[in-house]
């Protein structure tokens, strides 16, 4: 029971991160720091480096765990041509990222609401997995 309470509190705190800075002033602040949520730390240069070392191409499937609104998986998929599965727990993050992901990747992207510790995915399915600031 305690686990369930803790888990739902954790999910709520993740959801909250995506509900902050949604005002006009909040968007201005976010645009000055690259348009990311203020908790995201992966720069464009770092995402480009991630794409260069992922060793994938258009025939491959990439999994982004803890993807939030789709960063940095969307850039890696765009640069490499790989198809992307973008996974995260907060539905709010998936909702906010959906349109942008569709614009960037069209049918080559799927979003899944799920926990990276118990993925609803079969064995040996992906050519690469990326994650940014999920383990911290």
């Amino acid at each position, binding site marked *: 029971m305690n686990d369930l309470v803790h888990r739902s509190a954790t999910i709520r705190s993740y959801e909250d991160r995506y509900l902050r800075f949604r005002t*006009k002033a909040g968007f201005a602040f976010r645009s000055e720091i690259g348009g990311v949520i203020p908790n995201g730390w992966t720069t464009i240069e770092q995402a480009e480096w991630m794409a260069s070392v*992922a060793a994938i191409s258009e025939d491959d499937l990439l999994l982004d765990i803890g993807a939030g609104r789709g960063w940095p998986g969307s850039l890696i998929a765009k640069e490499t041509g790989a198809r992307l599965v973008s996974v995260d727990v907060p539905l709010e993050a998936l909702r906010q990222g959906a349109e942008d992901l569709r614009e960037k990747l069209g049918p080559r992207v799927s979003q899944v609401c799920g926990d990276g510790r118990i993925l609803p995915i079969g064995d040996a399915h992906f*050519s690469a997995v990326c994650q940014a*600031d999920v*383990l911290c």
Partner: protein
Amino acid sequence: MLRECRRVLKRDGRLVVVTIEIAEGLGAAQRARATELGPEDLGTGGPLRDLVAQSGFEVVIERNLTEDFRVSLLDRLNALDQNDAELRCAEGHELVDTEREKRANMLKAVQEGLLRRTALVGRAS
């Protein structure tokens, strides 16, 4: 989570991770301070390199991104400063103060050598 990454990856598939972690070689008191100043969900299980290796990967690349992280933290604090009045009006004092304190604490931890940001590539073995 890393074992789950290994499970869903094909053999020789790549894991590309970027994360904030506690710096290596710290004593108990410094580790406690890193945890106190670091992000809420800072991992305490050991160096990322070891965790990745223990989860069925061969570590093929490791990069230290701590300086980039320090610059990002300064950028966030400057952006908070520049938008302070508008943010306080629109988002509230509590949120602005909390965000500022979190970032200032993380910057302090980086400057004291308690936190680092690491990028790592593992190959599924």
